[in-house]
């Protein structure tokens, strides 16, 4: 899979060199073009995973941005209005993610979302502790994370 990605990049560069235009439009066009070519030539092998992953990544980013904006608005409302609606808590969330990369990415995405902050990961890598500003119900919160970021992330990575 990695070599496919590299091949994709390489082909993109070749495209850029051939066309002699080093700008973003041309790069993106070259990338899509070579992606398509690769998709065609590797169809039917188990490598095809690579090709389903790229759209998944795009979806994940969309999800992330949605979460980001939603949370920001929630927080903004709280910040701007005089009353505080927060119900903060530190919640331990059991992890399905296993590798360091998985855990780190998850933690970072959690942190990047307003209102939540990854505090630490237990030494056995089984639990992640998250500080959250709006915890109505602990279990619901845990589920929202597990079904949200974690699942989508693992989907991409595995």
């Amino acid at each position, binding site marked *: 899979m990695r070599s496919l990605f590299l091949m994709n990049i390489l082909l993109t560069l070749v495209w850029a060199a051939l066309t002699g235009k080093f700008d973003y439009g041309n790069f993106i066009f070259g990338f899509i073009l070579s992606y398509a070519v690769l998709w065609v030539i590797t169809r039917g092998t188990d490598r095809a995973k690579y090709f389903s992953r790229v759209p998944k990544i795009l979806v994940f980013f969309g999800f992330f941005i949605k979460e980001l904006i939603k949370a920001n608005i929630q927080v903004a409302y709280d910040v701007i209005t005089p009353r505080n609606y927060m119900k903060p808590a530190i919640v331990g969330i059991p992890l399905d993610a296993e590798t*360091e990369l998985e855990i*780190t990415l998850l933690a*970072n995405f959690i942190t990047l979302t307003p209102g939540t902050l*990854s505090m*630490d*990961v237990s030494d056995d*890598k089984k639990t992640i502790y998250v500080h959250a500003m709006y915890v109505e119900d602990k279990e619901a919160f845990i589920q929202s994370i597990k079904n949200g970021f974690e699942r989508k992330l693992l989907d991409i990575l595995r």
Partner: protein
Amino acid sequence: MNTIILKTASKYLLPLLLLFSIFVLLRGHYLPGGGFVGGLIAAIAFVLHAFANGLPHTQRLMRIHPGFLMPFGLAISTISGMFPMLLNQPFMTGVWKKDPVPVIGSLGSALFFDIGVYLVVIGASLTILFTISETR
């Protein structure tokens, strides 16, 4: 520090930052940057790594004591400064290769000089920071 989040991040940050530092070094003659800032960025890369993984780990990674980068860097800078003297030109006179090189632009003694600066800065800052970290 005992956090896999930082550890993992530093694993990816180290090569990224080193690359970045070389980039900053090479473009200094044309745009903001240069050996000094470049060197500092490289040093910071290692420092981050040391914060995350512990100093011994980083030192193993570097293989030599960072202090030895200083004589290397000084030697490179000095030689690039003295090289023109072989051609009977004053100390530090710029000597340039005729044709430009891609990415870097004109290749000249000034670049080697800046590379020396880069190495010294890495060596010196890391020596300072590492020494402090490992001493009580």
